[in-house]
């Protein structure tokens, strides 16, 4: 098994047979993807264990149906397996590559099923407060939680156009038609909402963190 928290590997004594010891290192994503491109199933499952919850969370956000989200998750990881050699770590991190694939598959799925976007439900206030990060924290998870919170805080008319565009793959004109709103109004709402999100996002940027550049 690859990856896992360091404490997990610390339990094993150094006398364990050599082939096991060599696999206890924690390879980075790029290394694992090279192994996956070479047909290494264990590397694939290690990546699955790292990213499946994230992929499924995004898929569920787009398709709003657990069964379909399972299918989307499975398709996304099959593509990771069959197209691993096309991943270039110099062009971005693996999670973004994989989640971009997931979003496309999920949006294709809702288009195929001509599914209407679900009613927006505001976050559970208690849960939302739990997810509000420590302001001093600049981890990526904290920044994503901040962005999620910032999106929830947007005025409904701005939040909804951003969600329809990004999580449901609708264009300006499709949103205007769906919401029976003038096209110009949709464009303005989207731009204003995105500008607010950009300000929130850039406030959390840590210039010393290479992953955020």
């Amino acid at each position, binding site marked *: *098994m690859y990856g*896992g928290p360091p404490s*997990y590997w610390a*339990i*094993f*004594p150094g*006398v*364990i*047979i050599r082939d*096991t010891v060599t696999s206890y290192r924690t390879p980075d994503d790029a290394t694992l993807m090279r192994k996956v*491109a070479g*047909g290494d*199933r264990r590397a*694939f*499952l290690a990546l*699955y*264990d790292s990213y*499946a*919850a*994230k992929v*499924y*969370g*995004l898929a569920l956000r787009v398709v709003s149906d*657990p069964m379909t989200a*399972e299918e989307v*998750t*499975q398709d996304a990881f*099959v593509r990771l*397996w*069959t197209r691993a*050699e096309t991943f270039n770590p110099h062009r*971005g991190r693996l*999670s*973004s590559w994989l*989640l*971009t694939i997931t979003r496309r598959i999920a949006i294709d799925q809702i288009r195929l099923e001509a599914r209407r976007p679900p009613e927006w439900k505001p976050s559970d206030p208690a849960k939302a407060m739990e997810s509000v990060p420590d302001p001093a924290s600049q981890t*990526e998870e904290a*920044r*994503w*939680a901040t*962005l*999620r919170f910032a*999106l929830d805080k947007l005025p409904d008319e701005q939040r909804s156009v*951003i969600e329809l*565009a*990004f*999580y449901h793959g*609708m*264009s*300006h*004109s499709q949103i205007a038609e769906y919401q029976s709103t003038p096209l110009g109004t949709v*464009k303005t709402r*989207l*731009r204003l909402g*995105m*500008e607010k*999100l*950009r300000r929130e*996002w*850039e406030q959390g940027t840590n210039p010393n963190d290479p992953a955020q550049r």
Partner: protein
Amino acid sequence: MDHKAEEQLAAHALGALDSEERQWVEVHLDGCTRCQAALASYESVADGLLHAPDRMPVPGAVRSRLSKQIGRPADLPRWRSAVKAVPAAGLAMAVGLILLLAVNLGFLVQTQRLLDQGQGALAQQQAGLTAAAIASYPSSQVAVIEEDGVRGTLVYDPSLPVGVMYVWGLQPPSDDQTYQTWLVDAEGQRTSAGLLTFSADPGFGWLMIEAPTPMGEFKSLGVTLEPAGGSEAPTGPRILGTDL
């Protein structure tokens, strides 16, 4: 800067521009470094939106299905593309190699058998060492398995996704069957923990469990009799089990 283009950048980053608008903005972007920089900042927000949804627990069946799916030759296009890439001369060489391999088949089979035996012993030794390592942890636990004359133990630590199970007195399965172990979570979801391996000693089986999440997240473990190769979900009779 062209303000009309600037106003479209956020929508471009979200993929919300209609086709004509997108082409127009992309032409503008080619010659405008300021808009390129502004677009990059919106794209980083879009990347954040990709990551923003909460992590959600994935049903264990997805991992099982994927594990099976990637094991099938049909899902290995890299092999297909490699074969297509072989030129005629290479193909002739490949045919020669195959013939050579055929001549040595008997020798290879014998070598493989010895290798299998060696690997089996090595894996069993590894399981023993792992069990000893887990047992040395203060929070480790041992679950006793006792059912219809079959005895066994499961050594695990609730905070770790590993465990080792030993059973004695279990009738080895027929060639077309296998014992498969399942971890059951609080919602009753079954996740395959692997197939029981039998040693040369009659009735002695063992399994090193590599669970998808820490063992403490499961409430029980069960063993069922399944077709050889295992099943995606339990289909056969329950043979053994223990609470975790």
